[in-house]
């Protein structure tokens, strides 16, 4: 309860009060002092009342009314039967409201409208407002209710909903309600959903290459086992129609598609089912951009090496450029023009370090694909070890620490003749020793090594032994000292005799010499070597070596021949040979690959039908690679991994008529290699132009990050996007720069479906810099997807506002809170009071009423009461007495100069004689007292 004034300024008129007082002070009237004071006070009271009335006082008391807004959820997730319950509940609630209560009804779905303004009517018609049911915006309903309810009565909001909010944030609006002290009472509608079949998602690859087949995956959720008809449309044309059996829960249906033409394609999937409640959720959209055929660069070590492979790839629809490694330009700008690079049996020696770095960067940073195909010159044999190329591969060439099936026995036959002491800088001998030491480093424990030095005679520097103590072996090698002639044949023979008895898969002799030798029966010796699987390589150093002999020896010995004038090349040649022979570990035995991993590469290929391979290069898988096929010895044959942005596939066998000769006639040969290469082909998008699209309410934010090949931000470009919306309307939105290398804009979302964007960047001078397509799908409203009720949200809203979950309709109108009510104007009673007081004022001045008069009046009242009682007791006698007393009272009254009471008292038959008798003496005695009083007062005054 509070008081306020509509015209508080009028209170200034109270300043008139002293004027009345001053006038009174200067009065020349001759009213008695007490009377004058009384009259003054009465007058001041009258003025005060009038001024107060002018100020317009109002009391705002406690509201005894309530206004309740009922928020009724009419969104589509509220089924007809739930709606009936809603209405029944509403009727019962409104019927139970008090006399002075009023109720409003607000219907809400995707928006909120006042269905019925505040009224005290108890009839509730069915909801007639037209509200879109495709969404549920509880916050809009609360906002409208807060605006509708007057603040002068107790307010409440009753929220009848399933709580399935999908637009706005009701909880934020609830906080506003709390701030304005409006509790929200929530009535959760329990759900009664019918059978439902809905499309969760339609998935197609965002990008496909021209001529490529792909699959659309349709995810359908069903509330029960049922049958549905599935239609797939592309660009508005029906592609396929089929009947599918759905089981309860999530079902994935794979719909294989034929290749589509280049450009943007819009897919729609529709389902029809007899057991379905909502049709709005029976459609899913997706898009696919078909871009040009991927270009693949195949680099081969020698012409014809990759002939079969290239044919296979071409027949699978890839554009293939085939180049010999010596002719191929392998730098970033050239590689950018290809989606994938295939290296077919290319040894590292034929690639420069710069080229290998370019290949590595092409995969890691540009996201290009890389397929490395083995062969007798590849991987370990091709000395990929410790090159940028090995870094990019899913396998290591280093076999150390692995149980090698191909154990090695190696004997180094080193010329220690006097001529070896010479040489530029360091002696040839020292270089040969260093070469030998480096060779032992490439071997492991299960390998055997021997070092035989020779001049005129042969001498075992290192007895052939398992390499358990490499340090010791290397010390012994250091002890060779040159001197004497050159006798090659006996040394080689000694070495052969030694090695032939050794137990090793690979037996190899490496001859290193710089001079001419006396003859020997090399033919027979090499023949025996061949029979015993011992190979011989030769290295000729210096200008006076017997080149022809050494070359022939290597040929006969199935080894390699090296020659070099520069002695510094010796260690390198030794390493090369040792690697090739020992470490490369070419395994040549027929086997069928075994599948150990799953990958799209092997999709649709029956591994058990794969023809046998005849050999491969042994490698070690890297920890994070994925091995798909292995050999009998569980060495990786086919492996893949992600390297930076690019994908790399390693095939350690070959793809020609050496190890894979049975494969060339395999019907899946082409398919297999196409799948291998396609696996490495990146999304056909410009990696330097990243696009992210985030739908945010009625707009979608498009963020474009532009970067150049050398990893610097692309700034000050004019960027825009051409947008094609689901209704095929085209528009253009600008994407201004917002940060280094970042461009951003918003596009309005009008309808659900797939949106296609083509983003174009031009430099300030107008030249096209980059462009790429992008797309996104706006699914149908969440109203039809998340069909579960959300009573938690309702509880949260209720708790937030101090309301509660309501069970009984009649609880609504129980008053719980005090709220200021409608203000009540106070001025009329004030004016009435002023008028009456004014009359008293006048009367007091004219009639000089005193206490005596009041007492007399009181006595009359008493008489009346008693009189009535007596009259009832003795009516007859009383009449006589009354007639008598009337005369005497009238006389007394008139003598007193008064009229009122007496005149009135007599007809009302007040008096018994006794009563009159009592009244008179008392009044006379009072009169006497007053006279005395007046005399006393007068006395001092006269002095």
């Amino acid at each position, binding site marked *: 309860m509070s008081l306020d004034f509509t015209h508080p300024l009028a209170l200034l008129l109270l300043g008139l009060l002293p004027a009345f007082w001053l006038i009174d002070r200067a009065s020349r009237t001759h009213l008695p002092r007490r009377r004058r004071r009384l009259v003054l006070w009465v007058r001041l009271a009258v003025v005060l009342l009038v001024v107060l009335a002018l100020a317009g006082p109002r009391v705002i008391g406690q509201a005894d009314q309530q206004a309740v807004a009922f928020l009724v959820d009419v969104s589509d997730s509220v089924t007809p039967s739930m709606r009936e319950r809603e209405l029944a509940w509403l009727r019962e609630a409104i019927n139970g409201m008090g006399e002075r209560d009023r109720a409003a009804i607000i219907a809400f779905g995707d928006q909120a409208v006042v269905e019925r303004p505040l009224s005290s009517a108890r009839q509730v018609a069915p909801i007639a407002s037209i509200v879109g049911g495709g969404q549920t915006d509880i916050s809009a309903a609360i906002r409208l209710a807060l605006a509708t309810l007057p603040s002068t009565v107790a307010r409440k909001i009753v929220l009848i909903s399933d709580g399935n909010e999908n637009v706005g944030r009701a909880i934020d609006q609830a906080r506003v309600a709390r701030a304005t002290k409006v509790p929200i009472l929530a009535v959760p509608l329990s759900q009664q959903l019918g059978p439902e079949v809905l499309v969760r998602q339609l998935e197609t690859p965002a990008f496909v290459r021209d001529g490529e087949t792909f699959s659309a995956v349709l995810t359908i959720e069903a509330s029960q086992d049922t049958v549905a008809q599935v239609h797939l449309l592309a660009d508005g044309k029906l592609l396929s129609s089929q009947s599918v059996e759905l089981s309860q829960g999530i079902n994935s249906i794979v719909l294989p598609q034929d290749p589509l033409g280049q450009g943007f394609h819009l897919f729609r999937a529709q389902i029809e089912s007899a057991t379905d409640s909502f049709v709005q959720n029976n459609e899913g959209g997706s898009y696919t951009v078909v871009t040009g055929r991927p270009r693949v660069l195949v680099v081969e070590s020698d012409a014809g090496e990759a002939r079969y492979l290239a044919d296979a790839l071409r027949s699978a629809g890839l554009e293939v450029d085939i180049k010999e490694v010596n002719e191929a330009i392998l730098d970033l700008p050239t590689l950018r023009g290809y989606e994938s690079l295939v290296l077919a049996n290319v040894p590292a020696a034929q690639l420069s370090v710069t080229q290998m770095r370019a290949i590595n960067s092409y995969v890691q940073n540009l996201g290009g694909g890389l397929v490395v195909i083995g062969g007798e010159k590849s991987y370990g044999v091709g000395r990929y070890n410790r090159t940028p190329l090995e870094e990019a591969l899913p396998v290591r060439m280093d076999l150390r620490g692995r149980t090698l099936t191909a154990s090695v026995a190696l004997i180094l036959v080193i010329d220690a003749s006097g001529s070896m002491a010479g040489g530029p800088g360091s002696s040839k001998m020292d270089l040969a020793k260093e070469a030998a030491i480096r060779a032992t480093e490439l071997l492991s424990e299960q390998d055997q090594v021997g070092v035989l030095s020779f001049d005129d005679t042969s001498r075992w520097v290192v007895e052939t032994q398992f390499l358990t103590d490499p340090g010791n072996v290397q010390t012994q090698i250091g002890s060779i000292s040159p001197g004497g002639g050159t006798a090659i044949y006996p040394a080689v023979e000694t070495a052969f005799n030694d090695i032939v008895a050794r137990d090793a898969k690979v037996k190899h002799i490496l001859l290193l010499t710089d001079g001419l030798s006396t003859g020997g029966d090399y033919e027979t010796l090499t023949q025996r070597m061949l029979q015993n699987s011992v190979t011989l390589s030769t290295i000729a150093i210096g200008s006076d070596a017997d080149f022809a002999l050494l070359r022939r020896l290597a040929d006969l010995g199935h080894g390699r021949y090296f020659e070099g004038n520069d002695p510094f090349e010796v260690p390198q040649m030794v390493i090369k040979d040792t690697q090739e022979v020992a470490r490369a570990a070419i395994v040549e035995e027929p086997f069928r690959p075994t599948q150990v991993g799953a990958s799209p590469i092997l999709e649709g290929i029956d591994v058990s039908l794969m023809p046998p391979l005849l050999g491969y290069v042994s490698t070690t898988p890297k920890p994070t690679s994925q091995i798909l096929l292995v050999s009998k010895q569980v060495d990786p044959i086919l492996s893949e991994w992600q390297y930076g942005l690019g994908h790399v596939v390693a095939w350690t066998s070959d793809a020609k008529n050496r190890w894979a000769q049975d494969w060339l006639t395999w019907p899946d040969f082409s398919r297999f290699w196409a799948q291998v290469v396609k696996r490495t082909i990146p999304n056909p998008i410009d990696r330097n132009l990243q696009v992210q699209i985030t739908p945010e309410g009625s707009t979608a934010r498009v963020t474009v990050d532009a970067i150049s090949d050398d990893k610097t931000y692309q700034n000050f470009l004019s960027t825009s996007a051409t947008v094609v919306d689901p209704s095929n309307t085209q528009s253009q939105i600008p994407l201004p720069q917002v940060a280094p290398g970042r461009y951003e804009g918003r596009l309005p979302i009008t309808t659900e479906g797939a949106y296609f964007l083509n983003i174009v960047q031009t430099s300030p001078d107008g030249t096209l810099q980059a462009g790429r397509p992008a797309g996104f799908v706006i699914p149908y409203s969440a109203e039809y997807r998340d069909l579960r009720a959300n009573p938690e949200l309702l509880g949260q809203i209720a708790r937030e506002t101090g309301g509660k979950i309501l069970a009984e309709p009649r609880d609504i109108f129980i008053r719980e809170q005090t709220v200021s009510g409608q203000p009540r104007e106070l001025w009329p009673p004030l004016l*009435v009071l002023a008028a009456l007081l004014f009359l008293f004022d006048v009367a007091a001045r004219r009639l000089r009423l005193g206490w005596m008069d009041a007492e007399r009046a009181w006595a009359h009242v008493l008489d009346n009461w008693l009189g009535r009682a007596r009259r009832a007791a003795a009516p007859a006698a009383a009449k006589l007495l009354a007639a008598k007393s009337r005369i005497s009272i009238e006389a007394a009254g008139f003598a007193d100069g008064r009229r009122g009471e007496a005149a009135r008292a007599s007809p009302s038959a007040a008096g018994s004689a006794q009563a009159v008798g009592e009244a008179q003496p008392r009044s006379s005695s009072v009169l006497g007292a007053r006279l005395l009083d007046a005399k006393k007062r007068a006395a001092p005054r006269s002095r």
Partner: protein
Amino acid sequence: MSLLTPAMLGLGILIPILILLYLLKVRRLEYPVSSTLLWQDLLRDLAAHEPWQRLHWSVLLVTQILIVGLVVLALARPFFVVQAQEAVHAVLVLDASASMQATDVEPSRFEVARRAARQTLRDLGEGSVATIVLAKSQPEVLAPATDDRQSLERAIDAAEVSFGPADIQQALVLATTLGPERGRLRVYLFTDGAFGELKGFDAEGIDIRLVSVGVDGENQAITGLAARPDPQNARRFQLFTRVRNYGDQPARTTFSLQVDGQLSESRQIDLPPGEAQEFMFSDLPLGAKAVEAHLAGSDHFPLDNAAYAVLDVRRSSEILLVSQGNLFLEKVLGLLPNSEVFRVAPRRYFSIDADRYDVVVFDGFLPDSMPRGSALVINPPESSLFTIDGELRRPRIRHWERDDPVLQFVDLRDVAIARAQRITPPGWARTLIESDDAPLLLAGEHDGQRTVIMPFDIRQSNLPLSAAFPIMMANILGYLEPGGQAAQRDLHPGDAITIAPLPQAEDLVIRRPSGPPKTIHVEGQPITFADTGEPGLYGVSQRAAGQTILEELFAVNASDEQESDIRPRTVLLGNGRPLQAGTQADLVPVNREIWLWLAPLALGLLLFEWFWFHRRS
């Protein structure tokens, strides 16, 4: 003239009573006197038995009758029918967008709009009710329909202008749905028109009146200031900024850039009308924390003459991996930028203080009580956090939430899982990856701490070998790592910022651009800080045991491409028709009460009567 409460005329009975008082003789006081010789006349009067006397008309009597008459008349509430404004339900929509802070009109557009609104209230017809709606990003009803002018004016006084755009359309839709039950609806829109057209609002059949404020749109603004790390060197930052002239005149202004409070750049720029200039700064000093840019000059909208940016240097977070040894996890966690990974075996977990780590990754192990930081739970045993209901064999990934930040850019098509725990999703978690009948990835906030559950052993899947794995793990750790306030984009004044304190933090001290710092006590729960009314750089210090353990910055910027364009414009409706400026209301006959004039008259007569009575001897 008619009477509203004619019954009150019944009080007219007071006038005869008044006259009656004059008919009665004035009672004389009795004084004993020696002789009554001189008062013969009076004596005769007294002697007469008649109490009446003849009515003497006097000034007093007439005045008194007039007074009573006036009061009675006032009480009867006479009124004249006059031509006046009709009583309506007026909805006053105040545009509170940032451009209303422009000072092209004194003292500001919003203040002028406020004054106009007050005037409109006063001009409303007798008996009108009004509703005040403040149009901000969401319309707000400041005063629901009432005829209480004072509460309406109080609401207007309390209205505050915002720092962001306003959704005028939504405010108008709200205004028009208020319903006509309180008289004819009339909407007043107080705005500078500096917003886009009202596409979905054609105002058909609605009495809507525009009150325009603002005259001049001269404004230069810093409409963009953003820094990103150099792609080649993540520790060096590059800065982009744009300055635009929104006015119709060429402008010359001085742009200055401060790095960590030190002036690093100052240049004069000339801007043709409507043009923008963009700048890149790539030589920011290493280790710089924040930059601010200022435009000199006095345009009408000083709010956007400064912009602030925090260089997003994130604190390295400490991750604890509780695992028997998992190469894949160690490797992928080690790759995360800005994080330090610690490893502990499960049996030693209880001997260390897990609460001090920002993120704890549990691999095949879960303690009974969770640490204070956020957690990634991989292949967990049964625990109180959730229930495990057997095992899934070869679950197929049916669906994943591509739009969720945790799964952004993650392609799970090739991922196969051999076996997974069948977990019943707890209420606090949302399912991100679904197989047929059980979740394969869950995320949510448990006890205020973010928690992600991956209910399978990653070694029982090819996930670690897929391209998706590092992306997904980076996303998950990005979701779990605390801090990173600076990364919150587009923070406008008044926007709330959520600060996730470090697990061991006890207090947050928030330094504002001006004013005393604010200390908030925290208990591991994220804090929402909304006191960001002032543009500028804010500092957040996390403190524990009196020590600052983390110092971060965030920037609040008032600049906004749309709001910086403060040119007053006509408001175009959805049907292409411009909204008309407010016209004078049509006059309708209304009742005008006059009691308020009668009462002062009575007051004057009272004074006169009092004076007359007392002057009489």
